C-alpha cells in the first residue's frame, strides 16, 4: 500500500471485518470482505449492504446568489430544485466535456455537494474560482460518508431514525442517528432503494457498527459497488465519462432541464446545444454479450463487418444478470437498442447486442 494513502474513519473496522484493502483515488479502501464480491453484490440486491464511501468529497456552498452562481458551472436546473431535494448534475468544461459528476442538494440556506474522490481537489479549486464573490465553498473534511443500499435499507435505517422511512427518492433530511447529527439522502449508486449518510468522522464507526449489527446488513466493498452500478447503468467518472465526453454523448440529457437546454449559460453550452440540435457523433450505450466472455474497459466494439465503431468503457460479469454486461460509446447510427455488434475480446469477435440500460431494473422508492 502506498504510505501516502489516506485512511477513512472506518479503517480499523474494515481490517477487523477481514477486508482486502486496495489503493483507490488516494485512499486505502476495502475492495471486498471475507464474503467476496459475488455474495456481497447479491446480498445488496436481496437485503442491505453498508458501504464506506468516506473518500468522496463533501462541500457546502453559501451565499445569497449561490443558486445562480453554481448554475454558471453546470447544466443542472438548480432554480427548480426545491428545498430538501437532490439533483444529479455534471461540472462541464468549455468544450462541453465533464470535469466531474456530482449530487447537489438544496439544504435550505446552503447547497450541499457530493463529488468524486479523485476530482475533489480540482473541483473545490474550480468551484472557488467559478463562484467568485457570489458564493463561498467550504469542503467538509471532518465528515465520513456511509451508504446503506438495498430493499431492506429503509426498514433497517428506520429502526434508528424512524423519519427515514417516509423520505422520497432524491430527498434530504437532517436526522439524529445514535445522537450523531446526520445529513441523510435517499439516493445511491446501486440501482436499489437506499440512503447516503454524511456524519461526523468521529461518530462513523459507532453508527457503522450499529447498522452492521442489524441482521439484514453486510459490509460491501468497492468491487461489488462497481458491479452494482454497472448493472444499474450508472456512470463511473474517469471510465464512462471524462473531460472528453459531453453529457449528450454520455446519454445524460435527462439531467438537463428544458430551461437550461434553451438558455444555456454554463461552460460548453454551445457544444451541448449543438449536439442536442444535430445529434452527437457517438452515444453511451449498454451492451449485452450473447456469450459468456466478459468484455472489459477498452475492448473494441465493431459492426458485423468487423469495422470498429466504438469502445467499451466499463464491463465485467454482472452477478444479478448472471452474465457479462458492459457499457461503452458507439457511433450514433449504431446506438439503437437491438443493434447487433461484436466485441473484440482478446482478438476474438464475440456476438453482442446494444441493450437499453439498466441491465437490472431500478428499485428506487417511487415518487
Amino acid at each position, binding site marked *: 500500500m502506498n504510505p501516502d494513502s489516506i485512511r477513512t474513519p472506518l479503517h480499523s473496522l474494515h481490517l477487523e471485518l477481514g477486508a482486502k484493502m486496495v489503493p483507490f483515488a488516494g485512499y486505502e479502501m476495502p*475492495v*471486498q470482505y471475507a464474503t467476496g*464480491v*459475488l455474495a456481497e453484490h447479491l446480498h445488496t440486491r436481496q437485503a442491505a449492504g453498508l458501504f464506506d464511501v468516506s473518500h468522496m468529497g463533501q462541500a457546502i456552498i453559501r451565499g445569497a446568489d449561490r443558486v445562480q452562481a453554481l448554475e454558471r458551472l453546470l447544466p443542472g436546473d438548480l432554480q427548480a430544485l426545491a428545498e430538501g431535494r437532490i439533483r444529479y448534475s455534471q461540472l462541464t468544461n468549455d468544450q462541453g466535456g465533464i470535469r466531474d459528476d456530482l449530487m447537489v442538494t438544496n439544504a435550505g440556506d446552503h447547497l450541499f455537494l457530493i463529488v468524486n474522490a479523485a476530482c475533489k481537489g480540482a473541483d473545490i479549486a474550480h468551484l472557488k474560482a467559478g463562484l467568485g464573490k457570489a458564493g463561498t465553498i467550504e469542503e467538509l473534511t471532518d465528515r465520513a460518508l456511509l451508504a446503506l443500499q438495498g430493499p431492506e435499507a429503509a426498514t433497517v435505517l428506520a429502526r434508528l431514525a424512524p423519519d427515514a422511512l417516509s423520505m422520497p427518492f432524491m430527498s434530504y433530511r437532517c436526522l439524529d442517528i445514535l445522537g450523531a447529527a446526520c445529513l441523510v439522502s435517499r439516493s445511491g449508486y446501486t440501482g436499489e432503494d437506499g440512503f447516503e449518510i454524511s456524519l461526523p468522522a468521529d461518530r462513523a464507526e459507532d453508527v457503522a457498527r450499529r447498522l452492521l449489527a442489524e441482521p439484514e446488513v453486510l459490509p460491501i466493498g468497492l*468491487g461489488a459497488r462497481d*458491479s452494482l452500478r454497472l448493472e444499474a447503468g450508472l456512470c463511473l467518472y474517469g471510465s464512462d465519462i471524462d473531460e472528453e465526453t459531453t453529457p449528450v454523448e454520455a446519454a445524460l440529457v435527462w439531467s438537463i432541464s428544458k430551461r437550461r437546454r434553451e438558455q444555456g449559460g454554463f461552460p460548453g453550452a454551445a457544444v451541448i446545444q449543438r449536439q442536442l440540435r444535430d445529434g452527437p457523433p457517438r452515444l453511451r450505450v449498454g451492451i449485452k454479450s450473447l456469450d459468456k466472455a*466478459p468484455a472489459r474497459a477498452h475492448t473494441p466494439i465493431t459492426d458485423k463487418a468487423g469495422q470498429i465503431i466504438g469502445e467499451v468503457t466499463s464491463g*465485467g*460479469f454482472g452477478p444479478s444478470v448472471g452474465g457479462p454486461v458492459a457499457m461503452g460509446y458507439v457511433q450514433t447510427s449504431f446506438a439503437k437498442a437491438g443493434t447487433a455488434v461484436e466485441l473484440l475480446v*482478446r482478438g476474438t469477435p464475440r456476438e453482442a447486442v446494444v441493450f437499453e440500460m439498466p441491465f437490472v431494473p431500478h428499485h428506487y422508492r417511487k415518487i
Partner: protein
Amino acid sequence: MAKVYFTKDHEWVKVTGDDAVVGISDYAQHALGDVVFVELPAVGKTLTKGDEAAVVESVKAASEVFSPVSGEVASVNAAIVDQPGLINESPEEGAWFFTLRLSNPAELGELMDRAAYDAFVKSLE
C-alpha cells in the same frame, strides 16, 4: 506415480511420464475471488513454457494462465467452462484446466515442488 510442480505465477502441473495436467493453485483462486469465466486453449495447440495458455476472470478482473512447461495441448476440461465456480471449490483436483504432452520434460527441473511452493506462498504474505 504422479509428481506435482508449481510456478511462481501459481500454476500447478501434475506429471506422469510425458503427460501433464495443468491448473491453478488454491492461493491463485483465493486471490482471484469468484471465478465467472474461463477461456481454454485449443486442443492440438503447441505451447512454449511461459506462453499465455488460458484466461480466468473473476467479477473484478481478467488474469492470464501461463503454461508451466512446453508441449502440445491434448485435452481441456469443459466442466470448468460450464461451471467456472469449480475453480474456487476444487482448484487443485477436479478443476484442472488442460493436459499437455510434454515436449521438453527437462523444464520441470526449473519449477518448485510442493514444499518450495508452500514456502514461496508464505513469503508473499
